Structures are given as structure tokens and as C-alpha cells.
């Protein structure tokens, strides 16, 4: 059952991804990207990552879509038809194929999917599962690892979000004024 859901979800994801490549209406693209996120959230649930699924649904399908739509309202929603259809796609395609081939090559030696004996589950992870209850006393191991064992990562994560806010404020905080002309147009704050 698990495996079947897994396969179906992955197939849907693949279909969505192909759609994303082809569609040129950016509204549709953003919506489809939201659907992609929702599907992946579903996949995460199947793979026992409920916290991640929750977050992906909220962020990928929710916040991210809202932000994209907000931006689309400002930049227009139609992607230009590629002018150099023939030539343009060759190099990216080659890069992607090589990268993909390398990854597939790498997965050949990956331990089989879902095997409890995989090295990935030992060394550190089993420690968390065994000790969290004694050391932290929180049943949700993900929370324990997130906020305590690897709490410093989470602090970094918070800082990244804050950095994004600082970046957006720096970029959009000056009020909308069209910049035109040469190499060094006047800045926003001059008007103030």
C-alpha cells in the first residue's frame, strides 16, 4: 500500500514537473508549482516525514504561492516565447543530462531504499531515537533534534529568514520608482 501510494505520487510529481517546463502562463505555472508542493507534501507523509509535510504544504503551497502571485502582479504573468528555440536548449539539456547521469550513477551504490540496516540510520540517528526521551523528555524526536540537538542549525535558519526580510526591505523598502536611463540612475531615497 505504502509503495503503491509512493509510486503514484512520484508519477504525478513527474507529470507536474513536465507541465511546469511546458506551460508559459506564469499564473498557471505558479499554481502548478503549488500543486507540486502539495504532492511532495503527500510524498513526505508517506515517507514518515509528517513535520516536513506540514511545513512543505504551508510554505511551498501556501506562503510561496502567495509571494509568487504578489510578485506576478508587479511583473506581469506571461513568459515570452523563447526566441532561439533550437539552439538555446542544447547546452542546458547537456548540463542536466550529465548531472542527472552522475546522480543516477551515484545512487547505484546507495543502500537499498527503506532498509533499516542502512548506515544512514545509525551512528547518530539511533542515538536520537533512543536517548531523546531521557535527555530531553519530548516525544516528537524531530522537535527535539530541531530545537535542541541541532538547535544551532535552527537558529541559523531563523537568521536566514531574517536575512531574507532584511534583503527584501533593502530592495523594496524605497518605494516604487521606476529607474530609467543610463549607467547610474538616481536612487530612491534622493526623493526623500
Amino acid at each position, binding site marked *: 500500500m505504502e509503495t503503491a501510494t509512493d509510486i503514484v505520487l512520484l508519477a504525478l510529481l513527474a507529470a507536474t514537473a513536465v507541465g511546469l517546463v511546458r506551460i508559459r502562463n506564469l499564473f498557471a505555472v505558479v499554481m502548478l508549482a503549488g500543486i507540486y508542493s502539495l504532492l511532495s507534501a503527500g510524498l513526505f507523509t508517506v515517507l514518515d516525514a509528517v513535520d516536513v509535510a506540514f511545513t512543505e504544504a504551508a510554505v511551498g503551497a501556501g506562503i510561496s504561492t502567495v509571494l509568487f502571485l504578489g510578485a506576478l502582479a508587479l511583473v506581469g504573468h506571461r513568459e515570452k516565447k523563447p526566441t532561439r528555440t533550437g539552439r538555446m536548449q542544447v547546452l542546458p539539456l547537456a548540463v542536466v543530462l550529465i548531472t542527472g547521469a552522475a546522480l543516477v550513477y551515484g545512487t547505484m551504490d546507495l543502500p537499498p531504499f527503506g532498509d533499516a540496516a542502512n548506515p544512514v540510520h545509525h551512528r547518530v540517528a539511533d542515538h536520537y531515537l533512543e536517548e531523546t526521551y531521557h535527555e530531553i523528555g519530548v516525544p516528537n524526536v524531530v*522537535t527535539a533534534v530541531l530545537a535542541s540537538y541541532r538547535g544551532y542549525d535552527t537558529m541559523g535558519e531563523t537568521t536566514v*529568514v*531574517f536575512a531574507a526580510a532584511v534583503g527584501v526591505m533593502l530592495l523594496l523598502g524605497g518605494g516604487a520608482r521606476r529607474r530609467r536611463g543610463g549607467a547610474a540612475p538616481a536612487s530612491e531615497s534622493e526623493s526623500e
Partner: protein
Amino acid sequence: MREELVLRVGAKVLAPFIVAFALYVHFHGDYSPGGGFQAGVILVAAFVLLVLVYGLEAVQQVLPPRFVQACAAVGVLLYAGTGIVTMLLGANYLGYNVLAHDPEHGQHYGILLVEAGVLITVFGVMATIFYHLAGRGRSE
């Protein structure tokens, strides 16, 4: 806007529930999926809903841009500050054990504090970004 009365009322009714749900997600993060980040995102969802229904200006009056910006900064300070407090109490950075009389409670407090930091920052940041993107369209 009169014909949107249903929406307005609906939003008014819905918003507290969303906030409550966010708080549940936050405080129940120890036991079930969820935590500060998810709660923050849900809060933002409530906020977006309010903006969509009541308009940007109205929401900005209740939640001024400077306030949400300050939230973004305060959350980080809360998180990093927790680490500094544990340092002052004699542990390493973010070593929560010393926050209470026994390690387990200390961990609880610590996690609660830093998750609160995450919540505040995420809400502040997302609201700020939303304000800026949404506000950009109007001032033109």
C-alpha cells in the same frame, strides 16, 4: 465592498480560530508534528486572509509595518539571547539544561523559548515581505 459582507464576517470569525490553531501547533510541537515555524506560517496565513478581505491599509493600522519588522528582529534576538543566557548560567551556548532546576525541564523551557523565537521571526518576516510586495503595487 458591501457585498463582501459574508467574507468580512467569515474572516472575522475565522481569524481567531486560525490564530488558535497556530498556537496549538506551536505549543503542541513537542508531542505532534509542528512547532514554531509551522505556527508562524499559519499565523501569516491568517494575516494574509485579513489583508485580502479588509485591505492592506486596515491591517497595517492594526499591525504597523514597523511592528512586524521589529518582530522579525526580536525573534532572532530571543533565540540567540536564549543561548547567551545559558552561557551566562554556566553552560555552553544553547545548553538548555541549566535553564531550570533539572535538565529535562531546562530542555523544555529552552525549546519553548527558541520555538517562540522562530514563531515571532517567521511571522514578522513573512508579514514584512508580504507588506512590501503588496505595498509595491499601490504606491505607483
